[in-house]
């Protein structure tokens, strides 16, 4: 399209100059023939006193005295005023030195040329019309073609754009008439299938690994508790056993969270219901108030009543629980937590470390901001997963020394 336009635009001046050159060439040839004719047939017969008559009869051929001393044929262009048109018109003029009666004369022959400007104008006009028609035609045809030709491609593109590997729905790319697109679809179908399979087996692996770990953890925990009951356990041994106990708890938490993560991704919790958000929060309040008290943390709430969201109850409870846990676990002694709920968002703000966290890594699995903390780096990624599941937007920001997590419904 652009190419044809460029060719056309280049063609206009080219055509103009070529046609002008050809035209001049023709005019020059005609003048030369006229001169040759004069020289051959009339010059030997013409008398000096006949020159005036000759000049009077023909306006395009003249004989003048050779005053400028022309020695050979000269050809030039000049505008001459035309009394009929009342306009200057271009003329091509040939001057040739002749000898009449042994005196030098100049034979002059001129031909009317088409006005350069007129020529250019009409050339341009014709070309413009051709270009416009051509471009319009091209545009319509390519559009038509691209719509029909590329239709299967755009269908494929749309499906691929909406493909999410964790959503359990492979793109359904239908076969079509165009071989290349058929190949593309087959390749994409294979790619999607293979990736989904790999994704599934990896998810299953995590789930199975977590499941299989539960039995050894259970054995470990049972043996520890049995050991704890022995009457001869010393204080030092007791302390070690207690630490081991805490470690099994952490191990188990890791397991539970991994299982939870893989379950959020499966369809198990996809059934939404209408939930009164403030009720979900208040239900947990007593428990977490108690937890906060151990660190002397105050909890201030501003919950708008009757905020109804469409979400899965279990997952929403987990979300609220993890937000609470996060706000308590990463808080300082004598700190505070502010919970705000309105119809747009739920925010948990807490005091804590006096610097902002790295927001881009925060929601990744196993990204621990504070390596010494007992958290396993899964709590926030679970929050993120659940928010994603509900198409809620999760944001973190640090302002006025408060770490704030905001869930926008």
């Amino acid at each position: 399209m652009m190419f044809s336009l460029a060719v056309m635009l280049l063609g206009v001046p080219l055509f103009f100059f070529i046609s002008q050159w050809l035209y001049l060439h023709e005019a020059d040839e005609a003048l030369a023939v006229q001169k040759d004719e004069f020289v051959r047939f009339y010059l030997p017969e013409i008398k000096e006193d006949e020159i005036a008559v000759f000049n009077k009869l023909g306006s395009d051929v003249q004989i003048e005295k050779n005053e400028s001393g022309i020695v050979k044929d000269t050809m030039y262009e000049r505008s001459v005023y035309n009394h009929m048109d009342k306009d200057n018109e271009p003329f091509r003029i040939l001057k040739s030195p002749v000898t009449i009666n042994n005196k030098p004369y100049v034979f002059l022959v001129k031909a009317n040329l088409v006005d350069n400007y007129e020529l250019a104008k009409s050339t341009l006009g014709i070309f413009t019309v051709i270009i416009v028609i051509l471009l319009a035609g091209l545009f319509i045809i390519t559009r038509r073609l691209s719509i029909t030709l590329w239709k299967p491609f755009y269908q494929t593109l749309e499906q691929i754009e909406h493909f999410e590997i964790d959503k359990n729905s492979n793109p359904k790319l239908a076969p079509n008439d165009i071989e290349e697109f058929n190949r593309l679809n087959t390749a994409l179908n294979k790619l999607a299938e293979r990736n989904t399979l790999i994704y599934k087996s990896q998810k299953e692996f995590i789930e199975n690994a977590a499941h299989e770990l539960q039995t050894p953890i259970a054995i470990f925990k049972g043996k520890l508790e049995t050991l704890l009951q022995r009457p001869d356990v010393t204080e030092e041994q007791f302390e070690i056993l207690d630490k081991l106990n805490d470690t099994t708890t952490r191990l188990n938490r890791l397991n539970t969270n991994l299982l939870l993560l893989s379950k959020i991704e499966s369809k198990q919790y996809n059934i939404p219901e209408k939930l009164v958000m403030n009720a979900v929060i208040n239900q947990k309040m007593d428990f977490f108030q108690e937890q906060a008290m151990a660190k002397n943390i105050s909890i201030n709430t501003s919950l708008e009543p009757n905020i109804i969201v469409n979400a899965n109850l279990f997952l929403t409870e987990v979300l609220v629980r993890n937000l609470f846990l996060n706000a308590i676990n990463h808080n300082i002694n004598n700190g505070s937590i502010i919970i705000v709920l309105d119809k747009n968002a739920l925010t948990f703000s807490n005091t804590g470390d006096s610097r902002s966290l790295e927001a881009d890594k925060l929601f990744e699995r196993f990204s621990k901001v504070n390596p010494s903390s007992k958290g396993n780096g899964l709590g926030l990624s679970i929050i993120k997963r659940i928010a994603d599941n509900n198409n809620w937007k999760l944001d973190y920001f640090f302002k006025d020394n408060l770490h704030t997590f905001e869930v926008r419904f």
Partner: protein
Amino acid sequence: MKILVIEDEIEIASSIKSYLKSNDILCEMADDCETALEKIALYDYDCILLDLMLPDGDGFAILKELKKQNKSDGVIIISAKEALETKIEGFNLGADDYLTKPFHLSELLVRIQSLVRRKNFNGSNIITFNEIEIDTLAKSVKIKDKKIDCTKKEIDLLLFLIGNKNKVLSKSAIAEHLSGDMADMLDNHDFVYAHIKNLKKKLKESGSADYIKSVYGIGYKWEND
């Protein structure tokens, strides 16, 4: 009291057996469905602990069999499966309680006690320990026939301690009992200390002896000295 432990993991079964032994609970073992069904047909148990994944079948088959035989043995499922559907299916098939692995043995013990209490029609809801009397239905505590003011949590804690009398309890075991499935998620078990302190104070004010002993400042033990 006699219970049947249906569990294929020998180490778990033996831990359960040794923990419950000192509380006068006799454990019989079955490590597969076949043995379990045999024992169920022959004897009556106060309580059955049932693992769901057994080498020769599903634990649910045993629940169905119990129903078919019209047995009224109380059943506590002990399983690593924590899916809600599995729990619901278990309850629908007649299980009385569900404990997800891994669990604290102290938790298992109070669950067994509570189940047996509920199942015994001639038994009462009153638990007594010297001068302390707890009504598990009305959720009230009396000391020397005088009612004392306790929160639900404190009564829960008291029952847990008395149920595990003479046993050393770690803070995490108590925390798990008090906070249910949330316990795993908590970094900090200091709230246990606050509850113990409050309970101790209330018991002391009402003229009860001090039965709650601290073990090296880390664990607790209910002991009659």
